[in-house]
């Protein structure tokens, strides 16, 4: 697995200050995609164990972080590896909230409870879902690009078997 970006602190990819990790590779090919270069699974740098350790140490040692955000590409094309990363991260740093971005919808990701995609989804707290639709682009939206995309509270949605939208803790 390759990564194509890592920001140790960001306010743009989810609530609070979050570490943002971008996983290379995407097969959704949305029209107007913000960065088609990330479609390539070999784009960026290899996610070596050393690099992973470095990032885990970074996150564990930063008292200001509210969690981690995983983006892409689309991390769900590397679901098993990303799940393994999250497990190792939590082993080292405790219960850390994870936001995850995908071109798939919640419904698509939950079709098969035994799939690696479902496994990854269930490890995260908030899903920003759906492809990017250029015609629905809206720069005023919180944490996403087009209005078809949703911010979904994953644990609540899984337990209630229906979409529960995520609500900000503070609303300005």
């Amino acid at each position, binding site marked *: 697995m390759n990564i194509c970006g890592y920001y140790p602190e960001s306010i743009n990819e989810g609530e609070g200050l979050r570490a943002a990790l971008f996983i290379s590779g995407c097969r959704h090919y949305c029209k107007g995609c913000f960065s088609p270069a990330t479609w390539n699974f070999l784009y960026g740098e290899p996610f070596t164990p050393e690099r992973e350790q470095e990032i885990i140490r970074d996150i564990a040692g930063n008292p200001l972080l509210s969690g981690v955000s995983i983006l892409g590409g689309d991390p769900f094309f590397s679901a098993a590896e990303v799940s393994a990363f999250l497990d190792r991260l939590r082993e080292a740093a405790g219960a850390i909230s994870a936001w995850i971005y995908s071109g798939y919808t919640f419904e698509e990701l939950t079709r098969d409870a035994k799939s690696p995609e479902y496994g990854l989804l269930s490890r995260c707290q908030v899903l920003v879902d759906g492809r990017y639709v250029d015609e629905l682009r809206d*720069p*005023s939206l919180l944490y996403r690009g087009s209005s078809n995309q949703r911010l979904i509270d994953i644990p609540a949605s899984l337990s209630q078997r229906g979409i529960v939208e995520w609500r900000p*803790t503070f609303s300005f």
Partner: protein
Amino acid sequence: MAMMNPVYTSRQDMLDEVITLGEEIVASSNLEVLRENANLNGESFSGKMSKFGSEYAKWYANHFVMPKPLVQAIQDNIVYVHDLDQYAIGTTNCIFIPFDKLLREGFNTGNGSVRPPNSIMTAMALVAIIFQSQQNAQYGGVSANKLDHDLAPYVTKSFVKYFRKGLDYFEEGDSAADYGLITMARSDLQAQYPRAFKYAVKETESETLQAAESLIHNLNTMSSRAGGQIPFTSINYGTCTSIEGQLVISSLLAATMRGLGSGETPIFPIQIFKCKQGVNQQPGEPNYELFLKAAECSAKRLYPNFANLDAPLNLMYYDPANPDTEFATMGCRTRVLSDRFGRNHLSGKGNLSFNTLNLVKLGLEHGIALGLRQTADEQGFYRELEHYMDIALDGLLHRFRIQSSQKAKASDFMMREGVWEGGEQLNPEDTVGELLKHGSLSIGFIGLAECMKAMYGKHHGEDADVYKKAYNLIAFMRDYCDRQSERHNLNITLFATPAEGLSGKFTKRDRADYGEIPGVVDREYYTNSFHIPVYYNISAAKKIELEAPFHGLCNAGAISYIELNGSARSNPAAFLRIIQYALSQQVSYFSINHPIDRCSGCGYEGIIGASCPSCNASEQDVHIRRLRRVTGYLTGDFQTRFNAAKQAEVRDRLKHST
């Protein structure tokens, strides 16, 4: 007249210099002179007029007034005398204004006398007038250290008026009867006269909001000093827990968020929210909601900043019964709380003047950066540091004597109306020295980071040992100030200088003398005070942790900033977390910088790259106004109003979230 500092060989040289000074101003040909102060439009008529005065006043002070060693130290590029144009005439720097007293007793601006106000609307209008009147009596900032406490009584006055009117209007009671002390907290009145009470609450709320809006508009549009400048105003608030005081706070925040005329971000006043455990820091505390609202406002408008009343150096003077003992700041960071003569409160005094040391040059002379030695010559460094601190201090004391010998009539509003505590008791011909001793004389410094680079090859963000050395250096300076306070029996304090006009001046000269030295003199500016350089990649938490201990040393004031890249307004959680973390680390005064761009085409406000994300207009076609903070003050458009050094600093700022 005797020339104290003759540096000329001939009168012709002197004449040439005076003529060139004038020519450059008339032709607007020296941009660095014009933009020295981001808040002054040096190309306007009034700006040029004041430049004529100030440039010549500086020239005069240099040649005829200042002690010779000080002039030499300035020429050596190690000491900088701030507001040199005011040196010879003995003006003072800044002040916290006792608004409570002025409003309660009424005052005279010199052009007319003013009665105590009977409503919050009038009270806020008078706040603007008082700021403006005082601004003309000094050269630095004017600040309200507890505006919520000061204005709450006038909210009550408005409320009483509306309540009595409501009693008549709704025929609920006798408007002239005695109801005891009527306040917004009187739930018994609310139960007994529900309609009159409700009406009075509604009217009072809307009047207070309108008053706040007009105050903020006034403070952004009024002029002082012959029209050349907007008064440098700061307002502190956040701890008043009466319903009236809370209304003042929430109205100021609401008005700030609404913005000016077409919704743009107000440049003034600098606003500071005072944070105190037990008052506004945790859910359930009386003003916690207001703290959240302050964070929201800051995420949208860059103000308010946050003052930490729980930091040890502030907490030691805190008396919960007296809001005048709560730490507040002149927006640029100046702090005047303690007083060896007992006035350990804020209003009615201020800073008298400050001189700043260029630590970088001392570092270059004694460090390894020039390649002349293997290890830093620390002994030589400290010897010279102390030598120049002596000179800087002598300059302050010399200036203080000039200030002290001024007559009360020279400082007009400040003394005659008792803005400076006790001034009202002086006769116009009395000198002001006995009163001024309550103010502070401060020694400042800039470029700690580059100094460390020059001495040891690394700055204090890069290396734990260097950090210790950096800390010890500033502790040494503080210790010096404390010792000199005892010796001279004056309030001598250490200042983390905000270096607007200065940041590039030292650098330019040093570059001319030493050339470009990597990591030391390779940018257009030196790093502000003890800050970790803006171009250094470091996490926000780490920056806060490293800078916090310096706040405890700088008793004349300091600020720490975190740079955020991204739309802070949409992520309050991040904003709150960072603020509260900084407070928990004992940072005394804190703020978060984030870019605010405004598209003049569609009015979109947020982050704008080469084209507006909302209307798609490109930067070439519409004007994008880019608001940034410079040394504590906001500046309308950093590309046209900053000096070159500050523009470079803004470009170099490394965001903690990129």
